[in-house]
């Protein structure tokens, strides 16, 4: 079904400095162990344990409010910034607990990129949007920045559409282009993991298709966790699927199994649309 992806030379010069610690470890890129999350007294996640395999796509499904976004924000510690949010349990990235006191949350977020539900480019030019992350992390050289911007836009399959004028305002792009720009912006800081929170829910079917193609090509280099409400999308693009319900991970397994032979009755009801 998928049309071949318009990524050109980018594979060859892919910027990823691969992190090889995983080879010492039989487990996944990210190991979540017994993770609970509280917003004040409200418990949003209950003892979630999940293993996220490297260079694969993990889809998270479940009804609204079941804690999927909260779970993603635990992995890059974006929940740290919410007053009253508290976690217990461990999130191991290449074997290191990201909640250890000696972990720098800003460097963690550089390694764990995130794409949001609503495309949220900054009100700056396309170039400035992509160059923002590298700049923050200390890249000053103009030509180096230009290189990173071009490489990231190519990797996000947006370069051909914007190369004529990368200095035009990002907000002048269409919704689908804005979302690919946000992906390029995330790729520009060379993350290893990409968290995507319903990245297509604000987009039309054609833009959605392009993002899906993009995700399939990105999984060669990145570990991707994507939240989606679209069952077809989840089964099309993901290798593994986790089903959340009321803050609990009900079932986790290979997507083919989850969508054809779910073990849990609640999973079956949800994926067949009989839920609720």
């Amino acid at each position: 079904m998928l049309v071949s992806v318009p990524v050109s030379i980018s594979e060859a010069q892919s910027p990823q400095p691969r992190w090889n610690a995983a080879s010492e470890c039989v487990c996944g890129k990210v190991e979540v162990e017994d993770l609970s999350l509280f917003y004040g007294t409200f418990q949003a996640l209950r003892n979630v344990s999940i293993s996220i395999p490297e260079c694969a796509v993990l889809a998270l499904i479940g009804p609204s409010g079941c804690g999927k976004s909260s779970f993603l924000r635990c992995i890059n510690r974006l929940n740290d910034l919410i007053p009253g949010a508290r976690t217990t349990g461990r999130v191991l990235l290449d074997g290191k607990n990201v909640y250890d006191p000696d972990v720098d949350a800003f460097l963690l977020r550089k390694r764990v990129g995130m794409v949001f539900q609503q495309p949220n480019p900054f009100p700056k030019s396309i170039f400035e949007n992509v160059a923002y992350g590298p700049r923050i992390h200390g890249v000053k050289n103009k030509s180096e920045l230009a290189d990173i911007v071009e490489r990231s836009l190519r990797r996000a399959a947006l370069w051909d559409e914007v190369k004529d004028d990368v200095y035009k305002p990002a907000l002048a792009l269409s919704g689908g282009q804005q979302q690919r720009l946000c992906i390029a912006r995330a790729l520009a800081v060379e993350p290893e993991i990409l968290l995507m929170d319903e990245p297509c829910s604000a987009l039309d079917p054609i833009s959605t298709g392009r993002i899906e193609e993009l995700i399939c090509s990105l999984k060669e280099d990145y570990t991707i966790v994507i939240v989606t409400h679209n069952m077809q999308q989840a089964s099309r693009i993901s290798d593994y699927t986790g089903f959340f319900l009321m803050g609990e991970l009900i079932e986790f397994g290979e997507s083919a199994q989850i969508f054809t032979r779910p073990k849990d009755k609640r999973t079956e009801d949800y994926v067949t649309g009989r839920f609720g």
Partner: protein
Amino acid sequence: MASTPTTNTQGIVFKNLSRYEKRSRVKDIVASIVVHTSGIAAIVVLFFIFVFLAKDALPTFTKVGILKFLIGTSWQPEFEKFGILPLLVGSLFVTFGALVVAVPIGIACAVYIAEVSPPSFRSLLKVIVELLAGIPSVVFGFIGLMILAPLVQKVFELPTGLTALTGAVTLAFMSMPTIISVSEDAITAVPKSYSDGSLALGATKWETIRHVVIPSAKSGIVAACLLGMGRAIGETMAVLMVTGNASILPKGLVGLPNFFLGPVRTMTATIASDMGETVQGSTHYNALFAIGLTLFAISFAVNMAADLILRRGGLGKE
């Protein structure tokens, strides 16, 4: 079926409307007349203010001459010298001096309130800032006179503490609440998704504020500063009380520090202090109106600039 069209046309004719529907149409017409009239009345009143100002101001330009009025270096009504350059320079120095103090502090306060302060403290701070904005200017003048002027005199060892600097700082405190509360609104209005996007890239809170939040709120912050400037340039009472009221020009560039630490006179203060002692219809009387007209033109220009910047910012956000 041929009769159906006639009944349908009858259905949308005014006289066939129910009582309730007719009343609603009439109310609609009355409301639109009221709104139009009030709008036009406001414009007409403004126009007449301008006309009366201009009527008494224009003779100045024939009696004194427009150039002699605008760039004449001496304001000495008793010797028939009506050059407002010292007053213009006085106003500009006091105003810009005030902005130099008020803008950075004001923006910093706005950032603190909008982005840093704990939420429970935030609402208290906002109320306080709004209260400060409502304090009458005489009160600021009084504080400037009693506290700031002696301080300035002591620190710089001056013969008098009533100086341009004292005026500028007093005005800075007056315009700060406006600057803080308008910029705070602009900063709060920046979508949270922008800062989330920045933080998710590994930026710190300060980097996010500096490079994403403040630039996104730029047009609102500029408008806040222009509003603060409008308040400062048009202010009379406080300035009259604390600047010493001497129409003096700086002696070249080297004379600027001394000028700033000496008494000055602003346009508004001149109108307020001279108006009581002029004869209606005299050149002096006309010249005071011409100063008013000049102020009118300046504040009109400042407001236009604010409007343009806001509108351009608004378009950029679409």
